[in-house]
């Protein structure tokens, strides 16, 4: 259901970006600072939940810009995109609109680890995001640079040492108040850019640096612990200067699969998709890196960069004498540029040119924009609650790279969750959490807030314990009902659709279980399937569907009267059947963990004076990490079973004491302030 046309944007933008002067003294529910993947999802989610939302960004026309690679999804990341979509976020639909090369990675490794991925047209992606935001009710966008947070005394009835009441803009003294503020400043928090031996302040090339005031407020005023991370981006190459015949052609899937559960097809027609190209580094590349090391500030510093997205410098230094992959990816349908994935570098521009020309297809290549490195501050995420709120500061939420993550999808997922919670908190509704047993977003947030980061955090499927249950195909079943019923960030259209899908799938599986035949009868029905007759047991249709060579289509043609109405779900049913025994095994463990996660530990608890038997060591760990739930506490290193039982006992007793409901469903308590 992709819309046929996006509105012409620039004519629409000006009335929305009101002059900031008009906003002074205005009270918003939620202010989102930043217009990247986290910021746009946060603003849209906050508005969907029902909050009057203001998005502040340095330049409106860079909202939705893909600062680094022109692609979305992948293994692990694709799962995040599907989940953001299931919660009615933007990036899945934007990907379907802007994608120009779709492929499902890991196609041969099992549906639980399929990685939906697409190359994107940068312009189309930006257009889609901007158009979505413009048509979102309750959302205003404004250009500006935030100088500081307005901080005051906390609400004594809630935990925390401070409360955020709004922001102050850099140009002049405009203060805008809000009940919640979401910071999604990406690499701009005390960001520095590195090319060769030059360093300049900034978070992205071509954009003004953010003010140092924000960093100062976070560290000095709010006392938050911060750390420093680095990342980098490759030079952009002029397409016409590359001899692509020397690289290996890599074609997309012939039938593009959309990210969004709402879309049946992608905007780009299958035959209009663009290819990618694969090439390899040569010994010359390693030589150039070694010769230019003394000219390369970024690489000499010991700030932590990601181990899995290293610059070409780190790659050849860590694994010398090898040939490394370089993908040449299109930047868009009409773009003249190529993006060399794997060649992120920070040496001086003339040496960058020497380096890329050591790679055969780029022998005569020209650089359009050189690569560069960025170093930036992040806030140690163990200081956040699972709602992504700063524990010490009421109303302040953080999402994206500011929490130490890397990647568009990781940012979008946090943005959505922080935005939804910022809105709920502003509207006096309780915040909500996602368990690591039900979603990759839950895994991401739990890893961040309970373990922290030592390097930029990226999602992998190996991080999810219940990988066989958290599949890309069932993200809607896992999250859409919850998103509508408990969070309020899902539209009723999507909700109704997800119910229809869920009921149909359930009916189909029940119908499959009702087909109950002996092996010999099955053999007659499906002569081509090797069913062993040694077992004289009866088999259901569901059992049959677990066979490798049995498809739902085969069963449907054998039993058209009971199954043919479910043909649209053929693939999903096959996957459900194969994974069912494993998910059943997971289920008990999942339920146990969820029960422990349902027991929350008060945030203001004084672990040192808690009148239960805990060792000093355990008290220290609990005080340092301040786990939000008993479940999170049990996962901490050094927490003994005895400590868990004592905590459990404490939680039971305190919960019994306050059995008075604090919130009433559906009622949003709002104060009216002028």
């Amino acid at each position, binding site marked *: 259901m992709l819309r046929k046309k996006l509105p012409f944007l620039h004519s629409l933008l000006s009335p929305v970006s009101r002059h900031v002067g008009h906003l002074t003294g205005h009270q918003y529910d939620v202010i989102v600072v930043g217009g990247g993947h986290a910021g746009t999802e946060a603003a849209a989610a906050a508005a969907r939940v029902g909050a009057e939302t203001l998005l502040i960004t340095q330049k409106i026309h860079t909202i939705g810009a893909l600062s680094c690679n022109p692609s979305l999804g992948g293994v*692990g990341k694709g799962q995040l995109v599907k989940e953001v979509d299931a919660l009615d976020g933007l990036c899945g639909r934007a990907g379907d609109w802007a994608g120009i090369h779709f492929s499902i990675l890991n196609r041969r490794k099992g549906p639980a680890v399929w990685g939906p991925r697409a190359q994107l047209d940068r312009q189309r992606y930006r257009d889609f995001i901007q158009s979505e935001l413009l048509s979102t009710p309750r959302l205003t966008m404004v250009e500006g640079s935030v100088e500081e947070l307005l901080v005051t005394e906390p609400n004594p009835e809630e935990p925390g040492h401070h409360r955020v009441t709004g922001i102050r803009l850099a140009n002049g003294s405009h203060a805008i108040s809000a009940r919640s503020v979401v910071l999604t400043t990406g690499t701009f928090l005390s960001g520095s850019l590195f090319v060769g031996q030059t360093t300049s302040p900034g978070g992205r090339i071509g954009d003004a640096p953010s003010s140092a005031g924000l960093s100062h407020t976070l560290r000095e005023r709010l006392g938050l612990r911060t750390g420093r991370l680095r990342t980098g981006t490759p030079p952009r190459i002029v397409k016409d200067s590359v001899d692509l015949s020397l690289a290996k052609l890599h074609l997309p899937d012939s039938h593009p699969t959309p990210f969004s559960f709402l879309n049946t097809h992608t905007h780009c027609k299958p035959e209009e998709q663009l290819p990618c190209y694969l090439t390899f580094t040569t010994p010359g590349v390693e030589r150039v890196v070694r010769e230019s090391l003394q000219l390369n500030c970024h690489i000499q510093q010991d700030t932590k960069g990601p*181990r899995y997205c290293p610059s070409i410098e780190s790659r050849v230094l860590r694994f010398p004498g090898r040939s490394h992959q370089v993908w040449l990816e299109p930047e868009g349908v009409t773009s003249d540029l190529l993006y060399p994935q794997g060649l992120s570098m920070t040496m001086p521009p003339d040496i960058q040119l020497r380096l890329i020309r050591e790679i055969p297809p780029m022998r005569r290549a020209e650089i359009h924009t050189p690569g560069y490195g960025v170093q930036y501050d992040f806030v140690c995420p163990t200081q956040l609650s699972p709602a992504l709120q700063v524990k010490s500061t009421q109303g302040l939420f953080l999402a994206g790279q500011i929490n130490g993550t890397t990647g568009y999808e990781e940012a979008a997922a946090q943005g959505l969750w922080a935005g939804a919670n910022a809105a709920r908190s502003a509207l006096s509704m309780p915040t909500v959490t996602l368990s690591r047993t039900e979603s990759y977003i839950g895994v991401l947030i739990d890893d961040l807030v309970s373990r922290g980061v030592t390097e930029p955090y990226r999602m992998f499927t*190996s991080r999810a314990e219940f990988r066989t249950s958290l599949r890309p195909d069932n993200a809607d079943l896992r999250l859409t009902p*919850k998103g509508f019923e408990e969070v309020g960030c899902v539209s009723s259209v999507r909700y109704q659709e997800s119910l229809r899908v869920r009921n149909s799938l359930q009916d189909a599986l029940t119908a499959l279980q009702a087909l109950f035949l002996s092996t010999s009868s099955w053999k007659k029905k499906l002569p081509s399937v090797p069913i062993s007759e040694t077992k004289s047991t009866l088999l259901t249709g569901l059992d049959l569907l677990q066979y490798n060579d049995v498809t739902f289509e085969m069963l449907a043609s054998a039993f058209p009267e009971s199954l043919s109405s479910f043909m649209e779900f053929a693939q999903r049913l096959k996957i459900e059947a194969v994974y069912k025994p494993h998910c059943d095994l997971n289920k008990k463990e999942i339920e146990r963990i969820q029960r422990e996660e349902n027991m929350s530990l008060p945030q203001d608890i004084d672990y040192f004076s808690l009148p239960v*038997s805990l060792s000093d060591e355990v008290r220290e760990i609990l005080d340092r990490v301040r786990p939000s739930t008993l479940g999170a506490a049990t996962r901490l290193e050094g927490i003994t079973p005895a400590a868990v039982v*004592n905590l459990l006992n404490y939680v039971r007793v305190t919960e019994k004491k306050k059995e008075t409901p604090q919130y009433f469903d559906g009622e949003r308590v709002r104060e009216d302030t002028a």
Partner: protein
Amino acid sequence: MLPLRPVCGGIWRAAVHTVRMSRGAPPYRLFSSTCDGAPAALADADTIFALSSGHGRCGVAVVRVSGPASATALRCMAGFTQRLPPPRTALLRSITDPRSTEVLDRGLVLWFPAPRSFSGEDSVEFHIHGGPAVVTAVLQALGSVPGLRPAEAGEFTRRAFQAGKLGLTEVEGLGDLIHAETEAQRRQALRQMSGELGRLYQDWSDRLKRCLAHVEAFIDFSEDELIEDGVLNRVDVSVSDLQAEIERHLKDERRGERLRSGVQVVIAGATNAGKSSLLNKLCQRPAAIVSPIAGTTRDVVETALDLGGFPVLLSDTAGLRDSSDLVEREGVRRARERVEQADLTLVVVDSHLRSVLPDTGTVPCVCLLMHRLCLLVLNKADLLPEKQRQKLDTELRGVSGLPAVRLISCQTNEGLKAFLTVLHSSVKTLCGDPLFGAPTLTQARHRAHLQRCAAALAQYQRYRDTDLALAAEGVRLAVTSLGRITGRVGAEEILDIIFKDFCIGK
């Protein structure tokens, strides 16, 4: 340190026992994110069993089973094919091994259907003869019943607590109880893991972790990276080797090291305090060489004793001091290792030294700080003038939190009788607790985890060519099962191996 953290969460922990698909089941339920209310009790799915009587001088041993599969255990081990026995009634039955139908013992069985049982769950008690062979056989037979696994430390009590079966005072002491049980299991495991068996398990664990890291790398990175298909072929070889080795180990009953049973009592202290004299006194023969030269004992001297009917394994260790002598240094290292594994430590101090109270950092202090069970033995009372005795008395009274102290003389036998009484009652308490020094239970636990590990590796083989996610799930389960013996493995540890072995550039 072995993280024996049985009841709480863990990475990649999942129930592994076989769940049969039910026929004609109620309508299919898809993944549902909502928790159906908040159940009153945290009922666990597994069924657990443990020896719940003491060992040593006992004629009858009680083995308890708790959980949903208790009735299954009763059916297949006590021959109730048709219906279950009346609740809470003792019946004399033949107890058989469900695998071989061999009769293991004749004993009493009791059936406690939920909720009227100690744990609030369906429970069964087997009252059998107390000999170690019978107990071991029954525990191993229980381990072979589908859905049953050996209990972890404190698990019975925890379940009883969750079912609201414990009184207020019992609940208050629960944390301490579980702490003690965990500690006892930890020491027991440490004893087993310090030997050849430990090295074997550790080697399996390392190889398994590597297999898992390589499968995970292949799943998460192979689409974009130069991770050759050869990686998986090497994993295939490793997995089938490991599976074969573990299965062979499980079949070869003699392969397990003979476990030293009895309460492990270790004599420790500074040099020349009279540790070896104490050992000789206790075993009433000159088992260890005694001399006035400091540092005479260099290795661990071990003696099995019967202390008022309870089995005790007494070890004399080298005096603790810094030494430049290589042999003595090794002796001191072994001494510390023994203290670490001990159920009870006898800290021997020379009483006529100026200050008997241990300085910070010396052994007694370390023992106290680590909440070890220990007795402080002040030796050489015969050399102590009356005046100094009084001073010592005041000094000791001024310190709180000291363990039981006894002033003795190995030379004149002064105070020895009183000391023996204290020692005897400590050992008796230890033996009364089924978890202390019960190697059979540890053995049964290891066996159960190894069986699951081998079964999980078979899952890898089964799905290797059709669904790598499900195949990887098998390796994950195998790592988790073995991790129950060798220590928990987290996702980060696996990622570390991945990044060490592969250059992941995307």
